């Protein structure tokens, strides 16, 4: 499927901002199952400095500095992205989870290192004993990794409530775990921490989710949303995406922007502003299918 994505974020400040720095992870990257054909980022007001680079995880990253006073900042990214249906391994035929780490540490090849780097704690997915015992219920010894991961995804979907008011971007994972509620990035972090507590490599994915219009109605403009999920490493198959918020194996309705160890590595917009007072944010995301996949 080919999508045209429009993602517009507008910040309004109650007191003018005299000066600000931002790091943006808004431009989609290319994956084996996804190609970004085109992407353009427009920023208003025009930044004093704008630099593009590729970050450690190979995501496109943009740095901007605004040195002129402004009361509003608009970041608008428009991309054309092609997402392909991927062949998924049969869960029961994937490698036993408890063999994975051992085989990765004794393998110095680049693919092994690329997987291994996602097997450890990160700032937002710290190990706790509770998380480990929660995870263990899905991973008895010798269980195929994807089977275990799907079971864990289901349990998180079942045991946790989606609640926009329960957490903020700063809420630590153990509080989410104790409170049993949160939003997509909390669930992604939770599952990542569970998998990593067992040293199963897993990475955070930031992206978009295509929404469907209610039966018989037109889809509202701007009603799609940014989303977060995760991928688990299945030797022989690569990264398999899971969505604990919706209890889904990810398919062509998920459009990825970037990957990292957790939210902190790929947050869409990170900033330090001087002045500014209170701020409001408006986000409008439209993910429109414009054609069938062309790549094979």
């Amino acid at each position, binding site marked *: 499927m080919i999508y045209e994505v429009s993602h517009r*974020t507008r*910040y309004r400040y109650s007191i003018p901002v*005299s*000066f600000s*720095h*931002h*790091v943006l992870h808004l431009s989609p990257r290319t994956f084996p199952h996804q190609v970004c054909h085109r992407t353009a980022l427009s920023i208003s007001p025009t930044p*004093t*400095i704008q*630099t593009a*680079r590729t*970050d*450690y*995880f190979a995501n496109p990253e943009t*740095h901007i*500095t605004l*040195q002129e006073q402004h009361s509003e900042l608009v970041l608008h990214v428009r991309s054309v992205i092609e997402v392909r249906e991927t062949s998924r391994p049969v869960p029961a035929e994937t490698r036993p989870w408890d063999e994975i780490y051992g085989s990765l*540490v004794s393998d*110095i090849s*680049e693919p092994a*290192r690329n997987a*291994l*780097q996602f*097997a*450890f*704690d990160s*700032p937002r997915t710290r*190990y706790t004993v509770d998380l480990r015992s929660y995870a263990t219920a899905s991973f008895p010894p010798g269980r195929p990794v994807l089977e275990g991961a799907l079971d864990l995804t289901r349990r998180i979907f079942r045991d946790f409530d989606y609640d*926009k008011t329960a957490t*903020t*971007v*700063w809420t630590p994972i153990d509080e989410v775990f104790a409170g049993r509620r949160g*939003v*997509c*990035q909390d669930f992604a972090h939770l599952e990542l921490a569970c998998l990593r507590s067992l040293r199963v490599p897993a990475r955070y994915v930031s992206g978009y*989710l295509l*929404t*469907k219009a209610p039966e018989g109605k037109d889809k509202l403009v701007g009603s*799609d*949303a*940014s*989303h*977060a999920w995760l991928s688990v490493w299945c030797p022989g198959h690569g990264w398999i995406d899971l969505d604990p*918020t*919706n209890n889904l194996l990810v398919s062509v309705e998920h459009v990825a922007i970037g990957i990292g160890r957790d939210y*902190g*590595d790929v*947050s*869409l*917009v*990170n*900033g*330090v*502003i*001087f*002045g*500014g007072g209170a*701020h409001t*944010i408006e*986000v409008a995301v439209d993910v429109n299918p414009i054609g069938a996949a062309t790549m094979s």
Partner: protein
Amino acid sequence: MNARLPQVGAEDHQSILRSYDLIPGIYDEMMDPAAGPRPHWQPFVAGVQAMTEADLNGYLRKAERMLRDSGFAHSLAALAGVPERPWELDFVPLLIPAEEWALLEAGLVQRARLLNAVLADLYGPQRLLENGHLPAALVFANPHFLRPCHGIAPRDGIYLNTYAADLGRGPDGRWWVVADRTQAPAGAGYALENRLIMSRCMPNFFRQTHIHRLAVFFQKLHNGLLVRTGRDDPRIVLLTDEAKVDSYFDHSYLARYLGYTLAEGADLTVRQNKVYLKTVEGLVPVDLILRGIDSELCDPLELDTQSSLGVAGLLQAARARTVIVANALGSGLVESKAMMGFLPNLCRVLLDEDLILPNTATWWCGQDDALEYVVRNLDAVAIDQAFEPRPLLGSTSGPILGSDLTDRQREQVIQRLKRRGDDFVAQELVVLSSTPIWQEGALHPRPMSVRVFIAASEDGYTAMPGGLTRVSATDNPKAALLRRGQGAKDTWVLSHSPTSTYSLLRSRVGTMSPRRRSKDIPSHSADNLFWLGRYAERAEDMTRAVRSVVRRLTEDPSDPLEVTVLQRVVDVLLDKTDIAPASNDEVGAGVTTSIERQINSLMFEPAIQYGLQITVADLKRTATLSRDWLSLEAWRALSRLHLEATRSRLPGRFDVSETIERTEDLVQALATFSGLETENMTRDYGWRFLDMGRRLERGWHLARILRGLLVRDEPEEDGSLVLLLEVADSIMTYRWRYLATPMMAPVIDLLLLDETNPRSVAFQIAALLQHVDNLPAVVSPPARSDAQRIILSLSTAVRLAEIPILCEADADGYRGTLAALLDRLDASLPRLSEAITRDYFSHAEARRPVDLKPAAEEA
């Protein structure tokens, strides 16, 4: 069993070695158990032995005094509940003979090169991982591997600008590296300070012994930085954290010695991908940041987003190579204990050399064979976190000794190791050597380790010939037990020949061009100086007023009129405090009961806002943070003043004569401090801000006292005027000028309007006007800044005031015009303070790390 040693000295009982009972099984730095003091110690032992008791005591007293003066600075920590000084300085240095030092130096220089090469690889091509020389997991699991720093390559390849190693000596006499410090090695400032104290106390020993000087090392460090910037007059700042007391003093000492500006993250800003220092004169570009805080904290944009200590955009500036950060951001990666086990091999791989200095045998439990070994030999090792280096002073949760575990604990530990082995290292138990300390008139052996510092210089790494030696308080020689609160020592590296002296050094750097600019004044330093001025003056004003009131309490205060006046003065002093006003009971109990209680609270209660104790604590805090700007004498005066103010009181109720004595001493000490401060400070912006703080506080205080005493009733009748003249220290001037009992009009003239009286309101206003006009402009003329408007308007009001109108009272005896003028002063001076703060101290532009992501939403 402790071995008795052969005695040195004529009479056994007087020998300084009489208590030197060797700790069994370990090496002693000074004493060869078979032959007595080792040759390199003999001159020292003989020297101390030869000192008369009086000389020795004189020396110790001098050392103690110097430590106290210096320790005063450290005692800022006491305010934050941290022990006063991180360690006591013992006067017996550690002596390292020349041949041993040559080996240590070569070993440490090699180690610095090695660790630098490891950093360059891991933050670059990662060939060590590709070739399997280092397990990838060891790097990926390390929280100090900072991904955003990957690929930031210093132009000259120097990731590790300074490095420190903690060394210990095993029972066989060999030196070992116990710990590596690569993040932001601390302690060089303390080593320098220890040397300074020792050299001032003990000049004879320095003359008799050839000891390597430390100055050469610092000059090389400095030259190394100059070369790195490619400039002969670069701006170098030392990035510190004022709240972290132990390292702050280390940094402030070092910054002062090297002439660098001490800055906090908030003093720096990144514009156009370049780093600038915010000074009262505006933004000035920075060439090199000597990083004194952990890498993680340095950039809230890309590293720890919750850090308030960093500089947003610093990583981008480092990537753009517009600034050098030393050590490079992320350098903490290689100081983890887990790395130690791999260094011997890495040394051969990267440098094609054998590691000269061994380090403590270390097994990273993230590898199966290592883990197996550790489980089998648990009794012989200490288990510790793999990646969290111990801070300079140790920490509360030390390593676990396998031999200390119960069977149950053993099982638990083994289980944890098997589950998450990569989080842990095992190390062989380090047994340290002992070295003498001085206690109760004799030498005693104590376990010790020494931190040695290495810096990049023009021609490769160079070691500081000396270091920071720490000794244990007990005789348990296990390295893990060196903790906070224990002793420190100077470290003398001996030389066979006379060592290079400062004059040699000077000719070496004779090509250095003279400094072209005066010292930068970071905005926050200006802020501290301004408040230092305000607190010093506040303490002085309060104490003078209290002295005048208390003096009158000794006389028979039967005149109710006079008591009313005294209460009015006290009420002005209490105005901003939460001390209770006079109660009915107190009025019934006796005329001066409430005044006594209130003064007692004001002067001696510890937690009264605007009271003396809090003011003096604030004075000390701001003075400490302004240390670089104060002379040593001013500093000593402040130390005495603080001692005076916080001296504990005689037990029991308020004592008038004691309070008089205390206020006399305090006024004296405060006057000494202000005198030194004005005499010794160069007339730069630093002085201006300090003086503005003083003038503003004095003007404000005076206006409020005048308001309290002059606007109603009959000041000519009730003693108010004499009291006022006394409080304002203007009684002599008045007598000399008027030769009469105080009258309203001349008193108002002298204390409010006379610009020639340094104790008048008008004098303060005129001084403030001049200061404000001489500050760097914040708006372009003819526009005026807020501060300029406020002070100009006040100055005009004071200059236009007419005495007869000010003296006029209405039918109720109320002097409305006088009251209005004084109220205006009372209200406007704090506003002036706010305007100066806004324009010059940079806090107005509050920085906020904002997480600009909306709460995630999805279908």
